[in-house]
Structure formats: structure tokens, C-alpha cells
């Protein structure tokens, strides 16, 4: 057999993986530039959607201070959900988008590790999600006239960054769905996202949920992200360990589980011939 040496030393392997990671982020930046108007329309839709929720506070008979607090709680819910939802969506679309473009086979036959591929998608999703969330927040605060003078933005952003790790992990698990089921996979991803929306207390306190749903809310990273960010924006609270440690624990478990699930799904797709552009 003709020998061709492809054994790289560790340094070169790490270098190649980092360039691959950069490539994923770079490609997503290119796509955002090319789909700028589409992204802008989506942003306006999110702002309108958040406004419809925050205006609920104006329809309830409350004092000015209570109205401000209620509107801020709804706003934080809407913005955090927009942020976490976009991370979830971008990571989940790792497969679906490439299948739609027809590039899936070239990406999956390239010598870059799957963790790097998925983490690259996650890093871009966090950066893009932060910019979007900030735009939604500023637009709604300016439009509706909410006072957020006590807000501790540093703590809120730090908590979001910690929560993002868990969301990337959960996103990896759902990213495998379009790989296993090209027709129904994306929809199943939305089902998972919707379930998290229901149990995490995005627009209402978790305490109003039935007890069994409250148990589920304990394993949703969104529960802790929402609680911590509300405290930081409303009361100026710093990072609370009670919110941080569950997010760290969920993050530590969700990323490896996400990778294992994705790997198993990729193997299944290779076995059944589903790893192709037409599904």
C-alpha cells in the first residue's frame, strides 16, 4: 500500500482545529452579511413580538411602580427567550441549514472534529444572540418607556454567558434530529424548544405551574437564566451562586451528552444513508 503520512503532531492538530473553528464562525458572519435584510426583518418581528407581550403590563390596573416592575419582568422574559431561542435555533440548524444549501456532504467529509464544528456554531450563536438581544432590549425600553436605572448589566450578561453553555449542549442534542429525520427533525427541535418555554417561567413565575412541571423546570437552564437576569435588571443584583451553580452543572453534563447524542445520530445517518443533501 502506498504510504502517505497524515499523522500530525498535537500542535498541528490543535492549530487545524482552531482554524476550523474560526472557519465556522467566519462562514456564519458571511451568511449574516448576505442575509442581512432577512435578519433585519426577523429582528423587527422579534421586537414587535416582545412589545405585544410587554404591553400586557399596561392593560392591567397597577400603580406606576408596579407597572414598571411587571413590564420589566415581561421584557426580560422576552429578551432572554429571544437570546436563548436564537442559540438553540442556530445550533439546531447546524444540519438542517447545510442540508438546505446542499453543502452537508462536504462539511461532514472534512477533517474537522464534530465538537469543534458544533462549538463553532455555538460561539457564533452566542455572539449573534447577544447583539440581537441588546437591540431588542434597547428598542423596547425606548419605545415603551420603562425605567431600568438600577440594572446591573454586567451581572446579567455574565449569567447569560454561563447559561449559553447549557443551551449549546441542549442545542447539540436537538441538532441531531434533522440528521435522523430530514423531514420532521426541525419540527421536533421546535417542540423541544417549546417545552422549555413552557416550564422555564419566561412570562410567569415557575410557582404557578403544576408541581410536576416545576420539577421539570429545575433541569431547564432557562429557569435560572431568567431568575438571575430579572434580579440583575430589576434590583441591580450581582451574580447569585444559587443561579450560577445549577447552570454550571447543567452545562457540564449537557455538552458531553450533546456530543455523544450527536455522534450516535451521525453514525445512524451514515448507516442508513441519510447524511446527504436530499435526505
Amino acid at each position, binding site marked *: 500500500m502506498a504510504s502517505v503520512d497524515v499523522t500530525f503532531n498535537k500542535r498541528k492538530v490543535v492549530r487545524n482545529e482552531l482554524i476550523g473553528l474560526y472557519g465556522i464562525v467566519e462562514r456564519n458572519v458571511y451568511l449574516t452579511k448576505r442575509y442581512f435584510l432577512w435578519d433585519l426583518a426577523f429582528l423587527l418581528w422579534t421586537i414587535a413580538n416582545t412589545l405585544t407581550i410587554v404591553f400586557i403590563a399596561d392593560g392591567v390596573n397597577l400603580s406606576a411602580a408596579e407597572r414598571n416592575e411587571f413590564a420589566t419582568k415581561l421584557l426580560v422574559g422576552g429578551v432572554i427567550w429571544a437570546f436563548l431561542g436564537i442559540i438553540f435555533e442556530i445550533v439546531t440548524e447546524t444540519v438542517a441549514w447545510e442540508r438546505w444549501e446542499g*453543502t452537508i456532504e*462536504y462539511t461532514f467529509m472534512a477533517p474537522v472534529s464534530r465538537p469543534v464544528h458544533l462549538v463553532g456554531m455555538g460561539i457564533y450563536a452566542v455572539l449573534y444572540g447577544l447583539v440581537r438581544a441588546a437591540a431588542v432590549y434597547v428598542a423596547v425600553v425606548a419605545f415603551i418607556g420603562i425605567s431600568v436605572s438600577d440594572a446591573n448589566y454586567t451581572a446579567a450578561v455574565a449569567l447569560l454567558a454561563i447559561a449559553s453553555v447549557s443551551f449549546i449542549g441542549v442545542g447539540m442534542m436537538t441538532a441531531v434530529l434533522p440528521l435522523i429525520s430530514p423531514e420532521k427533525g426541525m419540527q421536533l427541535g421546535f417542540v423541544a424548544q417549546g417545552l422549555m418555554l413552557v416550564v422555564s417561567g419566561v412570562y410567569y413565575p415557575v410557582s404557578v405551574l403544576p408541581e410536576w412541571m416545576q420539577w421539570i423546570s429545575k433541569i431547564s437552564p432557562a429557569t435560572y437564566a431568567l431568575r438571575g437576569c430579572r434580579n440583575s435588571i430589576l434590583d441591580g443584583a450581582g451574580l447569585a451562586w444559587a443561579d450560577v451553580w445549577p447552570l454550571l452543572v447543567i452545562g457540564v453534563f449537557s455538552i458531553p451528552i450533546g456530543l455523544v447524542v450527536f455522534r450516535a445520530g451521525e*453514525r445512524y445517518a451514515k448507516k442508513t444513508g441519510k447524511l446527504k443533501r436530499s435526505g
Partner: protein
Amino acid sequence: MSSQAVVVRDLEKVFSRRKGLVGRRRRAALSGVSFAIERGECVAILGQNGSGKSTLVRLLSTLLLPDGGTAHVFGYDVFSEERKVQRLVNRVSVEASFFKKMSAAENLAYAARFYGMGPRETHAKIPDILERVGFPSSRRNEAMENLSRGMQQKVALARALLTSPVLLLLDEPTTGLDPRSKQEVQNFIREIRQRHDSTILLCTHDMKEAEELADRVGLLDRGELLFLEPVDDVKARYGVETLEEAFFVATGRTFEDEKTEDDEEREVFA
């Protein structure tokens, strides 16, 4: 040490699809396929749609797992050492497969990053490789969706070459191209053979193309490799003048014969 670049032994691939509520319909895309390709050789595999050509290419590209048999690329097991094999292989398929809104340069940069090429390296290399495949530099930053099929296929060739593969898998690279674009792509394949240390596996249903470009020609029919020999040996074996006639003698059908229901199904499955 032999000089074999690809060694495939008894390769099997079966696809199945749901039939009704509980049943499954199974079709063999490849049945006991064995062959070897020497380093630097260009081998063409002929076959109708659904014959198993693309399945073979996807197996060697690490995109499929087999149901039996083995495949090695330069001594590396395709199915257990996939990362090593991925560094050696690239392909051009019948569909150009790009991010449609991104430009040729952006698509090439994306592909190059996966092979460890940073921005500094691709800054000079991408314009150079596009020029070599005859892609006009003025259209380098134009969205792929605005390019003709022939232009897109040139970018696909550039993408494959950018990563300097030692095994190039060409899966019907000229199908659907106008005669001029087809000629340009074929000329470039000849150039690759002359200038690079590349081994080429060309899957095609164009017999003339296979005869002109390849050192040896194989016929894959309904998942079985009927022969893989130099064209003259094929003609001598069947006592015929052309590859079309050889196909007829070997299979009992003409290349253009209508497909049976079974063939249609195999085409969908594979």
C-alpha cells in the same frame, strides 16, 4: 511495499425504506465490490443512474458506513480511521453544492479552513486556484446563485484542488454541463493528472469521457462491478468495438434501455 492508493474488498451496502406500516423494502446498492487503484492512476467507473457509483464515492468519502467488506485509502481504514482518510480525499459531485448567497471566494475560504488553511494562506491561494480553473477574477466576489452551472462546477473543482487531495473522487463532474464547459472540466482533469500527485476515481455515465480520461474502465451494474480493465482489454474480452457494445454484451441491455421498476427503486435508494 505496493503502490496501491485504494483497496476495496467485498464492499456491501444495502439501503432500506419503510414500506407500509411495519414492512421495509431493502435494495442492495453495492454487492461484493472489490478493486484496487494504483497511486497516480485514473480509474473510471461507468454505470447507469442507480448503479451504485455515488454510493461507492460516498463510502470512500466517509459519508456512509458499509454493511460488509473493507476499504482502505493509502493504507488507512476508511471506516475506522476516517479523520486520516478525510485529510487525503476530496470530491467533486454532480451538484456543485455551495452556500448560494456566498461568493466563490467565501465558499472556498470556508472549505479551506476545515483543512487547516488560515486567512493568510488562502488570501493568495484562492485567486490563484480560481485563475487556474479559468474562473474570471472579476466574478470572485459574486454570489454563487448568480453563476452558471459551468462556472459553479469550476469553483467545485477549485474547492477540491485547494486542499491538495491525493485521492480525488469525481462523481459525474460533467453531467448537465454545456459542451464547452464539459470540455474545460475534462481538460482540467487532464491537467491535474499531469501536474499533481493525485489518484483519480471518476464515476460517470459518459462512456466517451471514461475512455478519454481513464487508464482503466470499470462497469458497475446494479451494484456489481462486472469488470475493471484498460479499455482495449474490455473490448478484446467481449469482442466488440465500443464500450456501449461491451455494456450490452455484459448486461444484456443497452445503456439507454428503459429502467425496470427495480432499477428506478434502486436509483431512489442509492
